[in-house]
């Protein structure tokens, strides 16, 4: 077993453990912290798979942006002492059965499909080592060539702008109750 395998299995255990914690912890803030842990160990997995830029974006945007935003929202909206009750036990059982069935379905597709085991086009090792780097990704993202991603890039920037404006207009305090909702 090579050192890469060892790191992969350690990382997989971390990812799975923190994922289970994130869905099972009762306190929302604890769940958000477990989510942060899961995303962080996923960034480690990306590093193992030679996707350095994706790992960096994961840490900076996902953990530094989205999860911190979730934590802020929890802190802004927490009624101290008021907890949302758990679902009915029968519903929880149903959720467990549904998730297990889903997992079984995915694994069955994995074991029977195996379409990717056909000899696939495999990138050369040198190309693979460069593929996740900042330079390659930057060139591909902004090139207008047929294999470039310029148009999706611009569409995503429009979408982000729209989401930003929408979020501000939804979360804005309605005119007239200035200072009333503050604690």
């Amino acid at each position, binding site marked *: 077993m090579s050192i890469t395998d060892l790191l*992969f299995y350690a990382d*997989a255990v971390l*990812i*799975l453990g923190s*994922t289970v914690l*994130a*869905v099972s912890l009762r306190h929302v803030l604890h*769940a*958000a912290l477990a*989510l942060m842990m*899961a*995303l962080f160990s*996923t960034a480690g*997995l990306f590093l193992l*798979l030679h*996707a350095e830029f*994706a790992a960096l*974006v*994961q840490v900076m945007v*996902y953990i530094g942006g*989205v*999860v911190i*935003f*979730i934590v802020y*929202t929890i802190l*802004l*909206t927490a009624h101290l002492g008021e907890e*949302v009750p758990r*679902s009915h036990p029968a*519903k929880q059982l*149903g*959720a*467990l059965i*549904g*998730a*297990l069935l*889903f*997992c079984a379905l*995915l694994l069955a597709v*994995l074991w029977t499909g195996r379409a*990717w085991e056909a000899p696939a*086009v*495999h*990138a050369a090792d040198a*190309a*693979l080592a460069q*593929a996740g780097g900042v330079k390659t*990704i930057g060139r*591909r*993202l902004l090139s207008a060539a047929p*294999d470039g991603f310029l148009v*999706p890039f611009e569409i*995503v920037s429009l*979408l*982000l702008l729209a*989401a930003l404006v*929408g*979020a*501000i207009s939804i*979360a804005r305090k309605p005119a007239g109750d200035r200072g009333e909702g503050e604690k």
Partner: protein
Amino acid sequence: MNLTSCLVLAALVFACGVFGMLRNRHIINILISIELMLNAVMINFIAFAHFRAADPTAGSIFTIFIIALTSAEMAVALAVVISLYRQRHPLDVERMKRLHG
């Protein structure tokens, strides 16, 4: 470490996300479960890009697009949460009668 082990890991993470989404009632818990499911999808993209792609860069780029889309989604969703809280609505999805349409 091979492709199958990565895919199994992603499948398990995704199933955990499905379980959390069906089980929890707090709206932020459900959003967290959605994040976990997207995380599993990103693991799949990166794994396929690393093990079975003529063009491994595209895998990273798709992952970055997913992250951008997720941040847009979370911005809107959390704005809705803050708006609900401001109007004194419960953050329990089974009691959000006003959103039934």
